[in-house]
């Protein structure tokens, strides 16, 4: 089965017929809306966030038609689908053959993975040309900020310029040695150096005989692995970790939610925050849900009575749903915001 189909079918299964197929589209594209972010968390799809930006609605729709034709899915409301038992079998079998790469974490790294790549690939090109004493070459990255960063990086750090190549090489080799289930070729052949231009994604995919979709995901996987691994071991990877030293570990909140979070910490109520910021209470509620999803240890007790929290969790577990409407049917004392908040905090259904 083509890799893109595995991803879509998997998402459908996770969504359990409770969201439309376009939530998959927004997820893979990485749309930063509270709806998409909340859904990604609720349905445990965060690792796919912004992992396939080139997906088009057309491709998605064609795949859905194909799944319907194969009886892998059945309609469950408008543009919503449930995966059939046949579909589940197909999915399980495909995942056994081609499991999703395990370092992939789109939600955590989406904001820095591109920057990491741009900086890293430019650094390699500069070092390589330096080694060959070549001063005239076309930088492979065009982002001016990355150029400025590199200039400063080389100036401020006390690296010996002619030892950079060796250090980087040995750090990378160490990194890849400690990695399991990773094929470094996916990453390495993309790099450009002295008189050796890196390959495009399509070229590496063809060279390694991997499907292009799978290639994109594998590439992301390696980037995510590198960021995570290097950041966790800054002493071992002095050079590599300093590439991302100035990028703050991404605060996953949207800008506006960050401001709301500040007010919450000062003890303001939802109504007070709405009034101060001149926003609707429903907007602030969206922010609170987003905060609950992303900030570990964020207490929701001041927004919702503990007794109701327990009730909601119980109903969600019993009915195995994350659909607000269904849950509300069972507890009319809770409002939608409260249900969303509890689901956000506790992830809905237990595993």
């Amino acid at each position, binding site marked *: 089965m083509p890799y893109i189909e595995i991803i879509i079918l998997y998402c459908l299964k996770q969504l359990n017929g409770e969201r439309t197929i376009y939530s998959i589209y927004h997820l893979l594209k990485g749309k930063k809306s509270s709806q998409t972010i909340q859904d990604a968390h609720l349905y445990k799809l965060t690792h796919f966030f912004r992992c396939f930006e080139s997906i088009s609605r057309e491709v998605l729709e064609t795949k859905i038609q194909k799944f319907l034709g194969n009886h892998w899915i059945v309609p469950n409301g408008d543009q919503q689908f449930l995966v059939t038992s046949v579909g589940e079998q197909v999915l399980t079998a495909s995942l056994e053959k081609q499991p999703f790469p395990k370092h992939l974490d789109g939600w955590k790294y989406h904001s820095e993975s591109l920057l990491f790549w741009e900086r890293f690939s430019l650094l*390699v090109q500069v*070092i*390589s040309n330096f*080694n*060959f*004493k070549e001063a005239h070459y*076309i930088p*492979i*990255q*065009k982002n001016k900020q990355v150029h400025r960063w590199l200039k400063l990086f080389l100036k401020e750090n006390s690296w010996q310029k*002619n030892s950079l*190549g*060796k250090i*980087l*090489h040995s750090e*990378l*080799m160490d990194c890849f040695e400690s990695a399991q289930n990773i094929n*470094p*070729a996916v990453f*390495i*052949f993309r*790099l*450009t*150096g*002295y*008189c*050796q*231009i*890196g*390959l*495009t*994604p*399509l*070229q590496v995919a*063809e060279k390694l005989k991997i499907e292009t979709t799978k290639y994109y995901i594998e590439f992301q996987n390696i980037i995510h692995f590198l960021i995570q691994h290097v950041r966790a071991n800054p002493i071992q990877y002095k050079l590599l970790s300093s590439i991302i030293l100035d990028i703050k570990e991404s605060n996953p909140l949207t800008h506006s939610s960050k401001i709301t979070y500040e007010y919450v910490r000062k003890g303001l109520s939802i109504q007070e925050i709405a009034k101060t910021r001149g926003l609707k209470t429903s907007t602030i509620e969206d922010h609170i849900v987003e905060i609950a999803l992303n900030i570990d240890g964020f207490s929701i007790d001041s927004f919702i009575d503990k007794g109701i929290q327990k009730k909601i969790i119980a109903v969600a577990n019993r009915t195995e749903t994350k659909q607000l409407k269904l849950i509300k049917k069972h507890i009319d004392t809770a409002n939608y915001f409260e249900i969303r908040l509890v689901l956000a905090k506790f992830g809905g259904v237990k595993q």
Partner: protein
Amino acid sequence: MKLEGILKKYFGFQTFKTGQKEVISSILSGRHTLAILPTGTGKSLCYQLPGYVLDGTVLIVSPLLSLMQDQVEQMMRMGEKRVIALNSFLNPVAKRSVLQNIERYKFIFISPEMLNVPYVMNRLHELSISLFVVDEAHCISQWGYDFRPDYLKLGEIRQQFGNPLTLAQTATASRKVREDITRFLHLKEVNKVETSIDRPNISLYIEKQMDYQTKQNRLFELVFSLRKPGIIYFSSKKIAEEIASQLRKRGIGKTMAYHAGLDQEQRVLIQQQFIHGQLDVICATSAFGMGINKNNVRFIIHYHMPMQIESYLQEIGRAGRDGLPSIAILLYSEGDVELPLQLAEGEMPSKEQVDWFFSWLKNNNHGKIELFYSNNDLRTIGGFSEIQWRIIEDIMKTLIRIENMDVEKMHDLVNEYINKRLEVKRANIFKMKKWIDLNGCRRDYILDYFDEPIKRNIPACCDVCGVDLNNYLAHDESIQERETLEEWKDYLSKLLISGLEV
């Protein structure tokens, strides 16, 4: 100081490239100059150097933002700090501060639409303009391949500046376009400096094929046997991709497609791979070629017919920059002329779109037509492509400035304008087709089209005069294969460790 001395002092070069010195001397002797120099001859030097000799400001009108940005950066890298680009890239705060201190700048690049802004013009009028440069001057003519209505008012603007010394630059200009340039810029006398558009080492060759399938097979044959590297031009991204993938599958050449649909990183990689010999065939759209300096390209194939002779020449001009024999082959199969005709039509907004646009203006803007700029959804709702929308914007910009113009009148003028543009484009396509069907020498025809004297005794001139394709085949099998590293570990050490010991 002699010109060479100035060249050495400011640019570090010993000698001028062809045409540069002629243009510069012409300007410095106080004559308005029309410079027709091929791309890659360092056209910016032609106004930069006089700028250092003359007192006052050099004002450069340039239509392409990216090109403008490139030139500014290049000049800054060369150490010229008194250079600025006034265009929409500049944010309002920066723009204000630049304009307040405008007299600090020696070289001011400006987009034509900025010349419409009264405050900008007022500030510029306080300067003494020593040289007025019109870059890509063919844009002033509707006969050119890139007509920009904005350019039409440059003559008037020149006069407002008091007829400053003027340099108009372009890479190609047919007779009609040249006439338009001098006329619309209000230049009474102009000194022309041109190098021939002719490239005698490139043979012009046309092959007619029965149908599409035969043409495709013939392409595979040619690419297989011709001496490489080479570029194949297509009018369609999709077909460029398809053929590239076919060629790869058949193992014919190391091939990639290049078009504007690829992201920037991929575009840079493919260009650089080609330049470094990692690729030997590019399946390209017209997006490929700008700023590519590769001097050993041996063939150019046109799989689709170009939309005008100017772009054909520009594209084949990428072959044989080393002066060695090279060949330009155009494959034509029955009915091929339909594609450019369709493309030309598709570039223009349709009558329905224009009607819709004007009914929207009438119903929504309460007579404040200029407000349509700020409505970003308008383009999407009206289903305008980027090119279509640019055409609407361009023409509207001009119309809005005309007093007492009501919406109906504008509507008529826009329709008229579009029809006229379409007619010109069709005429250019048929001119190209006529050239394809020609029984006489193909080079003569082109030279005449560009108002150049006909040359004789060019070896392997064109298929009509007689060309032996065998001379362009890769007989030599000993071409060194580049080593390709199969192991990522080897690749990585090559990048990061080799070189050090050497």
